[in-house]
């Protein structure tokens, strides 16, 4: 083995003498490793981004709603229920009914469909918005049923061509009844929300208003189909959810009827996560396939190149090369090809992952960092290089074990 440097030199010479073949072998390794690293990193990065965005948004938010049975029986959620939840339950920061209506408005920019989200001032806790101008409506507004509203800056621009609209009035037509709302605040969408928020062309302008203001249009605001409870992080969401159900069932004397149901944000996160797991599995399959395809490419070229060189092996053996010397030479060749190919593959994979993530970040308005894992890099590299080395020396070993005359006879 003292001749190792000689074998490495021979290997280099051969790699350079067979540029095309060496390049193809490396290409297989490069494609295998780079695609796995890229696909896995982008996939993991996207999953992380979705997770953290969702977590940012909705922890501690619990939706309560009435079942079909409850509505058949005429049982709803009442404003008194909401007060009770806010005042009696521990860990509750706020409660809002989810009341809504729709109408239309005519401004200098044309006629717009309007969707009204009625709730209490606590509704701002669920928003993925920061106040840009003015302020949110207050509990006094809710108590007095004031017709005030909060609008997003994008919607303000659609209606008025500017977001400097605090203090302006919007004249609404709801089911033929006119009512004017004064704008008290302009909200701006938070930076990262690419996955969760959505907008589309012709979407109604959405206004957040005190639910009590609907009385102007002739509704009694005394029963709701659903409400949202905001729990703080000192209590577990599950406990609060249980307490809410218990309280409502006590107040409506309907224990065990399952009139009231809960969907907490944690449930949604869990659902989303299981979806993400499916996506990740799919991505891993794609990665595994590209790895295998790259591996097969490497295998083919290695097999062909060694078979092609059986004669060379015969010549070397006839001159006194031992089987082990031949193996060393081919091992050195395979190792050089796979190491160089592997490094290029890792580099391209990382660059590709960073590039793809920044492209996706730009187009979706979410920040995605490539989820680069050492285990991915190591796994992909070991697999590709393993195939390269194995198929580089296994046939060489077979050829080297032939008698020199037999090896020379093969062409």
């Amino acid at each position, binding site marked *: 083995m003292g001749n190792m440097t000689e074998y490495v030199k021979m290997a280099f*010479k051969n790699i350079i003498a067979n540029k095309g073949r060496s390049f193809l072998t490396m290409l297989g390794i490069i494609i295998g490793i780079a695609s796995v690293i890229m696909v896995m990193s982008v996939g993991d990065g996207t999953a992380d981004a979705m997770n953290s965005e969702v977590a940012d948004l909705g922890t501690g938010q619990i939706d309560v709603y009435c079942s079909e049975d409850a509505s058949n029986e005429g049982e709803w959620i009442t404003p008194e229920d909401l007060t009770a939840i806010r005042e009696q339950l521990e860990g509750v920061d706020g409660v809002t009914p989810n009341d809504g209506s729709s109408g239309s408005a005519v401004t200098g920019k044309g006629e717009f469909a309007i969707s009204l989200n009625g709730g209490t001032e606590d509704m701002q806790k669920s928003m993925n918005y920061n106040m840009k101008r003015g302020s949110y409506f207050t509990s006094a507004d809710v108590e007095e049923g004031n017709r005030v509203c909060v609008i997003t800056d994008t919607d303000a621009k659609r209606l008025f061509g500017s977001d400097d609209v605090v203090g302006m009035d919007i004249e609404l037509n709801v089911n033929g009844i006119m009512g004017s709302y004064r704008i008290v605040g302009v909200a701006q969408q938070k930076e990262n929300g690419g996955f969760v928020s959505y907008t589309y062309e012709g979407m109604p302008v959405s206004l957040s208003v005190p639910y009590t203001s609907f009385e102007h249009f002739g509704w009694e605001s005394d029963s709701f189909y659903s409400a949202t409870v905001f729990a703080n992080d000192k209590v577990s969401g599950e406990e609060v959810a249980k307490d809410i159900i218990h309280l409502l069932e006590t107040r409506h004397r309907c224990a065990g009827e399952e009139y009231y149901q809960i969907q907490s944000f944690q449930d949604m996160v869990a659902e989303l996560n299981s979806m993400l797991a499916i996506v990740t599995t799919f991505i891993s399959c794609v990665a595994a396939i590209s790895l295998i395809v790259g591996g097969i490419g490497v295998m083919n070229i290695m097999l062909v190149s060694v078979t092609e060189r059986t004669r060379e092996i015969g010549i070397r053996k*006839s001159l006194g090369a031992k*089987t082990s010397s031949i193996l060393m030479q081919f091992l050195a060749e395979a190792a050089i090809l796979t190491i160089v190919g592997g490094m290029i593959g890792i580099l391209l994979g990382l660059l590709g992952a960073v590039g793809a993530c920044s492209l996706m970040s730009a187009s979706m308005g979410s920040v995605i960092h490539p989820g680069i894992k050492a285990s991915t890099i190591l796994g992909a590299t070991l697999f590709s290089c393993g195939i390269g080395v194995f198929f580089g020396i296994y046939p060489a070993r077979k050829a080297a074990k032939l*008698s020199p005359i037999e090896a020379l006879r093969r062409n």
Partner: protein
Amino acid sequence: MENLIRVQDMCKIYNPGENEVRALDHVNLEINRGEFVAIIGHSGSGKSTLMNMLGCLDVPTSGTYYLNGKDVSTMKDNQLSEIRNQEIGFIFQGFNLIANLNAMENVELPLIYRGIGKGERHRLAKEALTKVGLSKRMEHKPSEMSGGQQQRVAIARAIAAEPPVILADEPTGNLDSASTKEIMEILKSLHEAGRSVILITHDNDIADQAKRVVRILDGKIVEDYYNENKKF
């Protein structure tokens, strides 16, 4: 003194079984150090087969073979590699040079496998190439040389490590008469320098230049005589 080569009862059977070929049939042969032997016979008579056995490129089906006092017929693959490297210089009809190595590198190959360091290797290879008249072609690849030149590179490769036995299997089979003459001159000079040379040929003119001629027919040695008047 021990013979250089002593073959006893050697047989080589290809494809044992139904359509077996008895390429060597109980061959006995002794060759001394410093001899120049021509082996002649018709095509298919078993000359190459015998040569491959003598060169340890293949193993006989039965019989014993002593080379330089060592029983080669029982040796394992690795030991045979060593014998080929140290005792034998083989010259093939088809040259068998490695295409992507230049003349110098081809000649260096057996020296590398012998474990000779770079400087000494260069010196020996240069010396051998000079002996065959190729001191100006050392950087050339085989594809850049004529057949005669390629065969001279192959001879240089065979003699560079100074093995005691030179085996040549129709070394001039692919060459024109001028190149044939050159090659023969080189082989003769090697013999003069004390090497044992065994040469296969089916050309009687060439065989007549050798002092000892062994004729082989259907795997058997049928004639073994000395041209007493010949120098080699």
